[in-house]
């Protein structure tokens, strides 16, 4: 049985920890709201972009863009969008588990977020580039990453580019997701689960019946400028989703930590009081015994 002083110290330190986790929970909650809004606000844009490109692709079936070229896959690049900081529950663990099935030798890694990079180093895989992402992802960062990936693909360095990120479903649910970024095979498929259920129902009607569009100046040139833009935005959207997931996950993790600390403090205090009471009782016992001995 620990001494009273030790127990007091223990309660004190748990309380201090609880204060920290509570503060982190609140910070994460505030950031979460922002990130969630940003992720949700970006969806209509991505959706419309997908729709345009989808229609376009139907109209120019004979035209292939270099970014759409399907080659036999010798080397794959994987972009891992992880977090920079820890303390966000099982988010990174779940995410990085998805990295393992990739073949070690024929895969290059690009990491957005420090945790992913550390993991790649630790497991002795090839890290091609590392980007850090700030609390609020900016489009220019997404563009830089997307540019690098596109260059890798176009130069023939890699034949396929996958993106691994945590898709934001709700505050308590985030799922590690793998998406093929390059070559662009089919646009609708990529899009399907990015969009919430009710939204996709509304969006589908446009692509269902085939409409022949006119393009200016030509379909190929519109497609040529739409494609890279599409990739940039897709990536940007992934980053937003990943951020929203990170903050949600951190908030939930910190909330659990705070709750656990609370429970622990309760248990410890109970134990402390019991020990204290026992000490008093035994002291009393000693005094009365001593008094009785004196009387005799």
């Amino acid at each position: 049985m620990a001494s009273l002083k030790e127990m007091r110290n223990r309660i004190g330190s748990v309380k201090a920890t609880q204060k920290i986790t509570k503060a982190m929970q609140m910070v994460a909650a505030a950031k979460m709201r922002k990130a969630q809004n940003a992720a949700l606000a970006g969806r209509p844009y991505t959706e419309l972009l997908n729709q345009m490109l989808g229609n376009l692709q139907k109209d120019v079936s004979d035209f292939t863009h270099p970014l759409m070229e399907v080659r036999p896959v010798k080397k794959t690049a994987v972009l891992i969008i992880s977090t920079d900081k820890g303390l966000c529950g099982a988010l990174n663990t779940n995410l990085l588990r998805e990295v393992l099935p990739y073949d070690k030798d024929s895969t290059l890694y690009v990491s957005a977020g420090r945790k992913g990079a550390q993991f790649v180093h630790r497991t002795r895989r090839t890290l091609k580039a590392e980007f850090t992402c700030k609390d609020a992802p900016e489009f220019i960062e997404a563009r830089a990453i997307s540019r690098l990936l596109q260059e890798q693909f176009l130069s023939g360095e890699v034949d396929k580019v996958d993106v691994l990120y945590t898709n934001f479903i709700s505050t308590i649910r985030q799922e590690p997701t793998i998406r093929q970024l390059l070559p662009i095979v089919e646009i609708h498929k990529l899009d399907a689960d990015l969009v919430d259920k009710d939204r996709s129902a509304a969006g589908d009607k446009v692509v269902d019946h085939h409409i022949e569009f006119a393009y200016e100046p030509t379909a190929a040139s519109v497609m040529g400028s739409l494609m890279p833009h599409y990739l940039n935005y897709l990536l940007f959207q992934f980053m937003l989703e990943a951020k929203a997931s990170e903050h949600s996950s951190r908030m939930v993790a910190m909330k659990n930590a705070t709750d656990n600390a609370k429970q622990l403090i309760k248990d410890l205090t109970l134990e402390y009081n019991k020990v204290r009471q026992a000490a008093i009782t035994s002291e009393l016992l000693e005094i009365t015994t001593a008094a009785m001995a004196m009387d005799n």
Partner: protein
Amino acid sequence: MAQSLRLEIVTPTAKALSEEVDYVGLPAAHGEMGIYPNHIPFVTELAAGEVAYQQKSKVFHMAIGAGFVQIMPDKISILTDMAIDEDHIDEQKAEDAKQRAEARLNEQLNDEELALVQATLANSIAQLKVKRRRK
């Protein structure tokens, strides 16, 4: 026969506008375009500039950044990185942004920064153009 025309302007951060309109003027990359209902399905690039749309007899103006437009007989969807309606343009801020961007163009920039600065410049010029048109 669709007589109404829905104009939607979507930016990465929000759906900036969704209105029933009678006419829309667009800054297409190859020159201004005017769209009435029942236009043929059409897709083109947009340059940064001014969108004018007419509701009944009133005309509204918006500054938009570069992007794309998809036109359907009953719907126009604009994808752009910026959309601000006339009343919300801060002339001073746009002017400042323009000057900053111009100053930065003289510095050594990498491709990423250059693209960003040029986009900012085009956006601020578009805003100023919309704002000053009637002065």
